[in-house]
Structures are given as structure tokens and as C-alpha cells.
């Protein structure tokens, strides 16, 4: 057994890890195990969705082979452990791009499907599952299920965003999107309060493919921030940015994000970026994946790890709910540097347990300060519940079961598709098995 952590580094419990190194051998590992397991890709989800202490982890990163790519129509077939990074690097020179990508490209295709990840262009292109044409699942009883939007659509709806609980995803077919190249025309616009944020968001949706914002939840009264928007551009060839990778070399004894560092840091970041705010042509990597060049950045939160709290609340309640959450955070004295505020488009997700829904999403991370942090979360939960919102499973390590059940009304429908041989910490915590 070996200790395995998820991205939040909240636990380091022992797991029986099995590498799924070739697709022909998956069945023999997944079907004949004595203990229940769950698929595990890059371990980039923050909480316990990819963990299964004392049980099996089926590590999918060895399933890293492309199977076919048709340059003429942008259809890509690959194994589930292929990284989004490798897809981008393969297809962008051919004039294609992943239609939807999350804030890191160091995740597997299987993980992107199982969490139905979203990106900065949700208002135009929805979430990752919207572009998947077909998925192969291996169930622990040996059955192989091929599903997609037009084939066993019920299985597909359960599997997209299904937290890996419907079977092990081994292969997928993705419809890529035309892209003029690796460049984006991007602009940063500072906003002073939430009113301005919502005006910017609404005003940008029609003309900008990508929108997102960094929100300063602590200084300046909370609620000011930087709105970033971008569009793909074919504007000229220019030299590629130099790749400089830094690694956070150690786990500091205490979190480097704390009440002393956060205020000056947030203030400096806000003003620095405000002065620099302008329109630039940028490469897709720093635009989509600003943290990917700082390897193991999750270590800055110290040995106790950190939580990420991501909610979505419907638009009617949105502004008040976000304001209320910011107020609670300011009152707690805890805070978050990586705070992201974004509006989702007006579309329902495919998956029964997909996170995105029409409204506004706020993502915040908090160093783990034990009870203090949990009490803050309870107050944030109350705001989310009141606003009829939900929390994102890929980020969650602690939400109460009632909040999960209230936020995900298709849960009872989903349960029928679960694979009885698959279990994770998250599934036991929120679904009882």
C-alpha cells in the first residue's frame, strides 16, 4: 500500500494502487479485485473524489495512447489517461483545439469526463461532456459499455460528471474545435464592486469567448477584482513564450497563505494588474493555465493542506449570495488568494451530477485551519442552500449530505447506474456506499 494525496493535500492515507497500463489488461485488474476501487488519474481533484483509503485505486495514467485523429473533421479518439496537455500540443498545430479546458491541462481525459469540467467559455460551449462523442466503460462485472449522446444516452448522462462511479472510463472520442492558432486576444478590466462585475460579465458574453475574473475577497471592502476576457486570434506569427517551470521545493511548516500575507498580497496583485490592464496578444498556455508552470504549488498551504470551496448559485439570487459569502469570509478573517468569480451560460449540463448550471460560480481556497475553517464553511453552506445552489464535487472534501442531495436533484436517477464494485471516499460520504 502507498500513501496517496489529492490536490488539496488534506490526507495521505494508504491505498492499494494498481496501474492500468494497457487496455487489454484493464478487465483482469478491475474485475477480479477483492476490494472495491475507483479510477485515479492525475489526482488533480482537490478533495476525496479520487481517493479510496484502504481500498484500490486504478491508476489510469498508463492509458496514455492516442488511437486515431482525423485532421479533416477534428475527431480524436484516445485512451482515458491521455493528458489534456498532450492533446493541445498535438492538435493545435493542425488548427484544432480542445473546445473546453479547465484551469490546468495536467488532467486526464477520463478525469475531465468524470468531473465534467468546465472552462472560461462555458457561456458559449458548455462543459467538457458536451464535446464527448463516445465513452468506453469497463464495469467491474466485466461488461463493456459504449455510450454517447446518441447511443445509450442514459449511461452517458450518468457517466459524464459521474465521479467515476459508473465504471472505469478507458477510452473516449472527442469532437475538437477549429482554432486559428495558439494565440488569444486578451484583455484585463478592473472592476470596483459586484455591480460592475455583473455588468462586465453580461456585456462580454456576446463578443468574448472566454471570460473569468479574479476577485479580491478581502481588501478594498471585498468585491473588487480583475475581469479577464479573451478571443482566439489568428493575428500574426510571433515567437512562442519560453517555458520556465518552477517547482515549489518544500512544504513550508505553516501555510504561506495566512492573515499576515494575504492582505498585502491581494492589494499588491490588484493594483499591479490594474496598472498593467490592457489588451494583449497572449499564448494559450499562460491564459488558460496560469499555474501550470509553478509545479506543486499546492504545497504553499503547508502540511495541513487546503480546501477549495466552489459553489454555483442561480442568477436571480447570485449577486446577493456572492455578497453574503464575501461578507462571511471577511468576517472570519480567513481568506483566499485564488478566488475566481465567473458567470455560467444559460444551459443545462448533460450529466446527472454535472456541476455547471445557469448562474454564477465562486471558487475560493482556504488553508486548512481545522474547526475554524469548517465553521466558516457551514455559514457559506447556509448561503448556498438558501440560494438553491450547489457545490462542485471535484473540489469538495466536506459538504454535508443534505446539501449534496438538495443541490443535485437527479441523484436518485443516477444511483441506478452505479457500479457496485466502485467506491470512493466521496461516494461513501455523500451516497452512503
Amino acid at each position, binding site marked *: 500500500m*502507498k*500513501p496517496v494525496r489529492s490536490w488539496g493535500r488534506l490526507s495521505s492515507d494508504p491505498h492499494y*494502487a494498481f496501474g*492500468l497500463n494497457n487496455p*487489454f489488461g484493464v478487465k483482469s485488474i478491475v474485475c477480479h479485485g477483492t476490494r472495491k476501487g475507483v479510477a485515479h488519474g492525475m489526482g488533480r481533484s482537490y478533495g476525496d473524489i479520487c481517493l479510496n483509503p484502504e481500498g484500490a485505486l486504478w491508476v489510469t495514467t498508463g492509458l496514455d495512447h492516442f*488511437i486515431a485523429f482525423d485532421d479533416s473533421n477534428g475527431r480524436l479518439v484516445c485512451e482515458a489517461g491521455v493528458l489534456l496537455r498532450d492533446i493541445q500540443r498535438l492538435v493545435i498545430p493542425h488548427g484544432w483545439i480542445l473546445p473546453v479546458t479547465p484551469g490546468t491541462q495536467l488532467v486526464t481525459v477520463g478525469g475531465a469526463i468524470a468531473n465534467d469540467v468546465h472552462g472560461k467559455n462555458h457561456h458559449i460551449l458548455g462543459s467538457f461532456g458536451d464535446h464527448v462523442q463516445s465513452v468506453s466503460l469497463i464495469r467491474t462485472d466485466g461488461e463493456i459499455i459504449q455510450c454517447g449522446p446518441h447511443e445509450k444516452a442514459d449511461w452517458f448522462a450518468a457517466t459524464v460528471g459521474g465521479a467515476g462511479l459508473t465504471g472505469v472510463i478507458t477510452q473516449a472520442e472527442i469532437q475538437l474545435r477549429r482554432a486559428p492558432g495558439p494565440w488569444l486576444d486578451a484583455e484585463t478590466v478592473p472592476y470596483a464592486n459586484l455591480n460592475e462585475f455583473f455588468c462586465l460579465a453580461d456585456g462580454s458574453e456576446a463578443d468574448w469567448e472566454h471570460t473569468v475574473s479574479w476577485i479580491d475577497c478581502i481588501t478594498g471592502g471585498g468585491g473588487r477584482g480583475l475581469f479577464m476576457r479573451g478571443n482566439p486570434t489568428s493575428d500574426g506569427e510571433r515567437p512562442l513564450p519560453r517555458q520556465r517551470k518552477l517547482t515549489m521545493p518544500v512544504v513550508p511548516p505553516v501555510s504561506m497563505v495566512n492573515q499576515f500575507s494575504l492582505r498585502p498580497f491581494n492589494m499588491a496583485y490588484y493594483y499591479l494588474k490594474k496598472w498593467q490592464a490592457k489588451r494583449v496578444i497572449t499564448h494559450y498556455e499562460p491564459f488558460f493555465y496560469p499555474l501550470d508552470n509553478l509545479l506543486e504549488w499546492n504545497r504553499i498551504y503547508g502540511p495541513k493542506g487546503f480546501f477549495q470551496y466552489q459553489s454555483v448559485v442561480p442568477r436571480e439570487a447570485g449577486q446577493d449570495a456572492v455578497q453574503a459569502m464575501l461578507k462571511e469570509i471577511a468576517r472570519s478573517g480567513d481568506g483566499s488568494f485564488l478566488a475566481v468569480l465567473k458567470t455560467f451560460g444559460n444551459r443545462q449540463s448533460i450529466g446527472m451530477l454535472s456541476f455547471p448550471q445557469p448562474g454564477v460560480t465562486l471558487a475560493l481556497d482556504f488553508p486548512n485551519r481545522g474547526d475554524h475553517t469548517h465553521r466558516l464553511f457551514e455559514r457559506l453552506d447556509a448561503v448556498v442552500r438558501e440560494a438553491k445552489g450547489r457545490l462542485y464535487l471535484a473540489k469538495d472534501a466536506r459538504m454535508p449530505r443534505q446539501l449534496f442531495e438538495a443541490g443535485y436533484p437527479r441523484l436518485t436517477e443516477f444511483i441506478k447506474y452505479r457500479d457496485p464494485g466502485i467506491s470512493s471516499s466521496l461516494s461513501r460520504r455523500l451516497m452512503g456506499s
Partner: protein
Amino acid sequence: MNNKKRIVVVGATSAMAEHCARLWLAKQPVDLTLVGRDAQRVERVAADLKVRSPQSEIRIVQADFFNPGAISATVENIFQSGNVDIVLIAHGSLSSQTDCQEDLEACCKTLEVNGVSPVLYAEAFAKQMERSNQGTIAIIGSVAGDRGRKSNYIYGAAKGLVTRYAQGLQHRFEGTGVKVVLIKPGPTDTPMTAHLKASGSKLASVEGVVKLIVDGVESGRLVVYAPGIWRAIMLVLMHIPNKIFNKMDI
């Protein structure tokens, strides 16, 4: 005939061989022949490489690894479609030392697959390359072949055989157009578990090791330690007197 560099990889389904191939293809389109035992698994590798480099020509050869006659025929066949610029001989399997001690069958398999078979392949390629007086033979040995120790001496003995063999072959081809490169990787993380490694473990990543191999083959170095630090480590280990070495728990 085309003018692409012609590369043959024996043991194409090994993680190291496959990553070497990916790197070669990323540099420029090549004419690549993949030799393996399990056709299904070699086809998986070939399909992936074809997607990564559509301009490359990729052929598959299913072959026996132990029958000398079959090996000889396989290699002759490969040369029938032209000379080979680089052959990477990469097959092998890291078996458990205890299995080898318990079961002579396992012991024999370990010696054959890691020692005898790579040597037979190299010898078959040497014969062909000598005729054309050009080409590079790259063989994957191991730091385990530098000195025997209790935790893996059967595997180490097989890799030691490869080391001695490569030395002799280098001697034989000195001053000719044929180059022989012996690669000695240290313990390497397989890609499948790299990110799961417990903190503190210092295994090298397969991508880093592979870059050293490809660069070493390119420049025709005699011995490539990958990562390079193993040259120093093994230099020290090889000079520890037996009396002391044999008391060490390594």
C-alpha cells in the same frame, strides 16, 4: 526509397522504448520499425505514434525473442527493405530476485530475456551493419549490471552480460562506421505511477531518462548513464572493497 532516418526498436512495448520513439518522432518524421512479441500491444504503440507523427512511416514486426534462427531471419528481413540508421534494443523485464531464487524457471527466463536475447539481437544487427559499414546499435543495459548485489543479482548478471558484450562489440567496430552505445539507466519511474510516488523518493522520470538516451545515441557516446549522476554513484560502488560491500544492506 525515402530519405527519412530509419530506426528499429526491439521490445517496442517497453515504456522506455516507447518514449524514445515518441521523442524521435517529435524531432522529425522517421521510418520506424517496431519489433515486439505481442502483436496487439505493438499495434497499440504504432497507432499512437502514427497519430503523433502522421508523416512518419511506421511498420510492425511480430517476432520471437528467444529462437536464434527466428531472430536472425527477422533482422535479415528488416534489412531487405534498406539499411538501418539506429537500432534500439530495449526489451527486458525486471523480475523479482526472490522469484529467481525460488524457481530456476524464473531465473532462466530472467537471464534469457534480459541478457541472452538482447545480445542475440545485437549480434544479428551487427552482422548486417558491418556489411553496410554504417548504423548505430543502442543497447539498454542497467546500472544493476555494474556490480552484483543480493537484491537483484540475477537480473544484474544478465545486464552484466550485456555490458561485457557491448564492450567487445565497441572494440570490434572501433574505427568503422558502426557505433555501439550502451545505455545504463538507473531506477526509473514508470509513467504509470510517477505522480503517485511518496515524497522523498527520488526516482527519475522516464521522460528525462529518455532524453538522455536519445541525445547519447545521437552523439554516439560509448556509455550513457541516465540520469548522469549514476556514473558517479556506480564509480563509488564499484570501488568499495568486497569485505565492506558484502556487509552493506543494498
